[in-house]
């Protein structure tokens, strides 16, 4: 018998969203259990670099929530859930100040307020930050505050099944990584804050945790996923050496004045500026530089256009033979020494971990030489469909927040809007999960569901290990997703990917593992395969469906935006027969008061 624990609210995930949700639920007086796959403080949030967007207006007094809202909607190409975008812009400043009250120490302005920096797609300097380690500051602050709020933390525990009583969620089944023992967590409400899907691709900035567990388990539990075709490829990942390919190079480098050049030494980003952003983009390199140095009359350099666009421009340069030696382009921050007296120390102070990362991993001194960068799979805009106010999914009692939830970012996320998303919607999810738990008593756990989930989880031990192993199956998927469902997509290739995924499912179901249940990486990877296959299929099939290019989704065979598609979103759900169903539905109209804000800020 698996050990059973009971909590009013279970939060799965201890990144920014999960920690904030747990703290909030606990503040509402319910018992809270927090579960995470890694050790506490190691979730993906720790890696975030550039900052957290909030219209504090400390650096530019013209900023306010309405501008932030309009920027977010424009960045998302109006595919966003406008209710969420409005909540996010309105509440983000309070959430930043709250972190300060819990001990976070952000970089300061001359006047002693929280400093804010420029980032792509944000009209004004808006990102509260700590050098280039903002995520560390956020997670540590929430962790150090959270451990004193009466939350029970279960580290290195992986959930692999959602338990239901009729329509409603009543708990989860998990194994502890250390011993491989099963655990049942009974709950009145469950919050998923499990992060993204980057491990479905070969080149990614994401860690092993990002196997789409939350999305896939919610899907199996009957929840709808939306916007799955929108996967953000960050324009600047490391490209060399091969073993670090994909590791992120923060947009903060460009925010501090870094420029992109091709092998002909040309600032190619000036060559293609989308109409939507023409009025907001600098005409000359001089104007762009002034903007990065805080000149309020200047407009932003084209390097700070939205990520989808910058990534495609880099792809174009590489494809047309103007790339760097290792298949990227050059990102140069060292050049600022022409304009700044103490540039070397300035770079080290503003971008310490970038300096360290290139020095240690690539043997490059970024204060002296340019970096080589190229696109890397970074973030999932799509995910679990939630109600814009409560964060509840389409399954009663199951909530979602942070990267695994969808809606806020539409077709493309602006940098810095994730960290703020985590705390704004983490708080909301925690609050509403607590309310749900108070309003609804305990459900009943069906032992049959528990038994069958455990049996499935143990099956890999009973299978022969002579076929392809779990790692090989994972690599095969990553390879194909990278090639066929990447930045530039085509109907025939996407369909080929869908077929490939279904073939790979057969192989995944034949994977055997050796050894015992204790901290067995092979077994864990084998269990992650279903999650990866579900999200990959959802991405590929949503991408086949959307016959236009919008935001992060670019179709070579439909390179333009299509107005009728612009009014639709993709929905993925599990059909009654167990197969995957993908369809398009109309986006709800944007409420008139929000539409007006968009118009005022065009």
């Amino acid at each position, binding site marked *: 018998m698996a050990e059973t624990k009971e909590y009013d609210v279970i939060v799965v995930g201890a990144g920014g969203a999960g920690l904030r949700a747990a703290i909030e639920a606990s503040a509402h007086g319910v018992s809270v259990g927090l579960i995470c796959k*890694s050790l506490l403080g190691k979730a993906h949030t*720790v890696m975030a670099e550039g900052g957290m967007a909030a219209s504090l207006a400390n650096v530019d007094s013209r900023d306010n929530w309405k501008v932030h809202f309009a920027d977010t909607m424009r960045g998302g190409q109006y595919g966003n859930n406008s209710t969420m975008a409005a909540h996010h812009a309105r509440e983000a400043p309070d959430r930043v100040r709250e972190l300060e009250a*819990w001990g976070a120490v952000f970089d300061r302005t001359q006047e002693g307020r*929280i400093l804010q920096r420029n980032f792509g797609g944000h009209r004004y300097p808006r990102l509260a930050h700590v050098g280039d380690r903002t995520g560390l500051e956020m997670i540590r602050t929430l962790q150090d505050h959270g451990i004193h709020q009466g939350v029970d933390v279960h580290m290195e525990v992986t959930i692999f099944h959602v338990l239901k009583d009729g329509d409603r969620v009543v708990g989860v089944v998990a194994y502890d990584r250390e011993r491989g023992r099963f655990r049942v967590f009974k709950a009145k409400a469950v919050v998923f804050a499990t992060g993204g899907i980057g491990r479905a691709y070969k080149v990614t900035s994401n860690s092993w945790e990002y196997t789409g567990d939350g999305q896939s388990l919610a899907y199996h539990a009957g929840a709808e996923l939306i916007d799955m075709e929108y996967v953000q490829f960050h324009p600047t990942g490391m490209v060399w050496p091969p073993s670090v390919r994909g590791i*992120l190079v923060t947009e903060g480098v460009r925010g501090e004045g870094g420029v992109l050049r091709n092998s002909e030494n040309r600032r190619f980003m000036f060559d293609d500026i989308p109409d939507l952003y023409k009025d907001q983009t600098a005409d000359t390199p001089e104007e762009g530089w002034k903007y990065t140095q805080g000149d309020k009359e200047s407009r932003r350099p084209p390097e700070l256009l939205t990520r989808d666009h910058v990534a495609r421009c880099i792809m174009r340069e590489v494809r047309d033979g103007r790339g760097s030696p290792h298949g990227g382009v050059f990102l140069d921050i060292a050049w600022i020494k022409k304009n700044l007296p103490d540039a070397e120390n300035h770079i080290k102070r503003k971008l310490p971990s970038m300096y360290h990362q290139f020095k240690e991993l690539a043997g490059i001194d970024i204060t002296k030489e340019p970096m080589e960068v190229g696109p890397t799979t970074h973030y999932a805009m799509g995910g679990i469909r939630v109600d814009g106010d409560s964060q509840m999914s389409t399954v009663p009692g199951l909530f979602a927040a942070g990267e695994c939830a969808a809606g806020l970012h539409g077709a493309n996320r602006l940098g810095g809007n994730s960290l703020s998303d985590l705390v704004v919607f983490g708080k909301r999810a925690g609050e509403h999960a607590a309310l749900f738990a108070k309003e609804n008593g305990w459900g009943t756990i069906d032992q049959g569901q528990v038994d069958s989930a455990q049996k499935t989880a143990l099956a890999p031990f009973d299978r022969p290990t002579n076929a392809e192993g779990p790692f*090989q199956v994972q690599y095969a998927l990553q390879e194909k997703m990278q090639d066929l469902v990447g930045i530039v997509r085509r109907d025939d290739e996407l369909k080929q990917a869908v077929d490939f995924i279904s073939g790979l499912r057969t192989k995944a179901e034949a994977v055997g593992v*050796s050894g015992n249940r204790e901290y067995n*990486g092979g077994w864990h990877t084998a269990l992650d395969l279903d999650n990866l296959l579900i999200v990959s299929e959802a991405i590929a099939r949503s991408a086949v469906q959307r016959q236009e290019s919008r935001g992060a989704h670019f179709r070579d065979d439909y390179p333009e935006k299509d107005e009728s598609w612009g009014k639709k979103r993709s929905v993925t759900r599990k059909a009654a027969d167990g197969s995957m169903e993908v369809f398009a539905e109309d986006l709800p109209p944007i409420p008139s008061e929000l539409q007006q804000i968009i118009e005022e800020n065009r």
Partner: protein
Amino acid sequence: MASVTFRIWRGDGETGEFVEYSTDITEGMVVLDAVHQVQAESANDLAVRWNCKAGKCGSCSAEVNGVPRLMCMTRMTDLPTDVPVTIEPMQAFPTLKDLVPDVSWNYEAKKQIKPFKPRTPDNEDGSWTMYQEDVDRVQEFRKCIECFLCQDVCHVLRDHHKHEEFVGPRYFVYTAALEMHPLDTEDRTEELKKAFGVGYCNITKCCTVVCPEGITITDNAIIPLKERVADTFYDPIQWLIRKATGK
């Protein structure tokens, strides 16, 4: 491409042995890449922790050729490869399995430390005014990625097993970050002396040497904390004030 031999600890704290594996090393590889390659090729059930692969999360700490380091930031070119590369888990903690130590003691140690308690906000919106020069010192401590390498190398824990009486360098850094936070109003001097055992530290600076974040643990955190303790406990005027105010 060259094949390199690794001696990797397999087993738990009580029983186990070094097992040799060979794998091909290519340009730019770090030790963690090699371990992953061994795991994928010939030891699927090898236990190893990691997350960021960029020195940001502090998960992949281990002892490489006897030196505590982050495996993801240790390039293969920095190691001699004509002899086997030895990799074992951190020795100051019990081993769970292979390269994975049981670091739960650290989380318990942190819980004893009184949390941040700010003064009332300076501004109407609930925020405070602090200048960069006031926070520089604390920001150095807040760079800590909780890799526990400093805990691993400290002889008070590693050799003398004072885990009950001594919180270790990581938590002096943490306490210093709280004590020197411009907004904090809490006093942790008494427990620093008693429960946290700052007196056990004899300033060998081994912790500072291994810190991958380059935090000057001893000079900037521990010595000032020791001075606070000395001032409070051995300064008769301070002692009288404490008596009188009950602090």
